[in-house]
């Protein structure tokens, strides 16, 4: 069985039905462990207990970017192979990614108030995330503006790829424009600068939220496939009633 067999919508439905309970359970377990560890992790000497927000804020930021990257990959699937499952994956990921981006901004804002003394600053990293959120919202607006799902999928795929090319440029521009946020401290040349006692809970939380993303995404894809099936059945029933 090749990977393309998995990409068959019917196979996907049966496989995901079997996988989903396990994934959901694993997500709950990992998040429970990760968050428990996060609560027991030592407080930062400067930031005190507010550093705990990091354990959800940072995974949200990573997953907002992960979601967009996955959508860009699905866009290639839509445009190059015209695969229906790629379209479903793309459509289901947008609201989840947008929610993670919004949560990242909200948690960051709540963290910023005690640390920087303000809910919002026009700092480079915040602004880049805001632009990413705008891209997500634009993609959702484009999809909802077009009735035909096939054409909507291709249009959204093109816009996703244009955005994907543009995101590094926006990131670079905004960095040039203003920087107050701390620089990257986990994924950097020469290893992480973050202390191990803080790093491990963070990585487990990040893994847990990634599982959450995958679970929600799989659920969203199932819903979307079933929705399309219902629409097709309704159209057929209407056509038969007319005949």
């Amino acid at each position: 069985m090749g990977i393309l067999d998995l990409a068959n919508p019917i196979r996907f439905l049966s496989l995901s039905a079997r996988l989903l309970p396990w994934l959901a359970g694993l997500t709950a377990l990992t998040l429970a462990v990760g968050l428990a560890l996060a609560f027991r992790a030592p407080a930062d000497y400067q930031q005190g207990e507010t550093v705990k927000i990091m354990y959800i804020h940072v995974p949200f930021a990573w997953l907002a970017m992960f979601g967009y990257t996955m959508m860009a990959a699905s866009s290639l699937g839509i445009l190059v192979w015209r695969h229906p499952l790629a379209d479903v994956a793309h459509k289901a990921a947008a609201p989840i990614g947008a929610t993670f981006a919004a949560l990242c901004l909200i948690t960051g804002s709540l963290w910023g108030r005690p640390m920087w003394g303000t809910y919002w600053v026009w700092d480079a990293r915040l602004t880049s995330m805001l632009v990413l959120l705008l891209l997500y919202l634009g993609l959702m607006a484009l999809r909802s503006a077009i009735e035909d799902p096939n054409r909507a999928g291709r249009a959204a795929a093109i816009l996703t790829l244009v955005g994907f090319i543009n995101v590094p440029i926006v990131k670079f521009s905004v960095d040039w424009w203003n920087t107050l946020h701390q620089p990257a401290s986990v994924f950097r040349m020469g290893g992480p600068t973050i202390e191990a006692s803080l790093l491990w809970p963070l990585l487990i939380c990040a893994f847990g939220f990634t599982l959450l993303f995958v679970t929600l995404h799989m659920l969203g894809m199932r819903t979307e496939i079933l929705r399309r099936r219902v629409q097709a059945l309704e159209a057929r029933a209407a056509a038969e009633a007319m005949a």
Partner: protein
Amino acid sequence: MWSAFIAVVRRDLGLALGSGGGAGLGVVFFLSVVTVVPFAVGPDLVLLARIGPAILWIGALLASLIGLERLFAGDVEDGSLDALSLSALPLELTAAAKGLAHWIATGLPLVVAAPALALMLNLDGRAMGAVMLTLLVGTPAVTFLGLIGAAFAGAFRRGGLLIAVLVIPLAIPVLIFAVSATTAAVTGPVPFGTPFRVLLGLALFALVLGPVAAAAALRGARG
């Protein structure tokens, strides 16, 4: 191929200038935006001189985007886009030609009008020159990025709000480097050339990305 490109540019220019209000309306919109800002922030000339380049750039950005709504819509509706796509010219170059004509008809007048509006905002000669130069380089970038939104709007008969929502995030780098080049020219410490060269690069990038993505959108819409 070159003559076909010129022909599309001339046709679109004729349509834009002939239908009346194409170029003029954009400039009037630009003037309206610039007029409204002092009412909002107060008539303080020192403050206006400081934020003047930003005001001019936001006005020009909005004026460039709002005019894009009908760029492909008319051609999609009356079938001339199908005729154009049968010609020797690839759809990418047709889109580029239409973008160029649109910029000459609506973007260039904004650049020409900018010094007069800059006077109203108390900008000195140095800042005025910098704004004009950045507009000359930056507005084509906005127009060509806007081609993507215009293609969606034309293909799916959707209005200008959608174009603005889709294109504004893409245009942020242009705005950043245009305004920082102007600021650099007036106050330093970075020399004007540094951000300006990045702006030139962004414009060249948009000249390629815009038509290619717009053509893909037009093809995708046809199904």
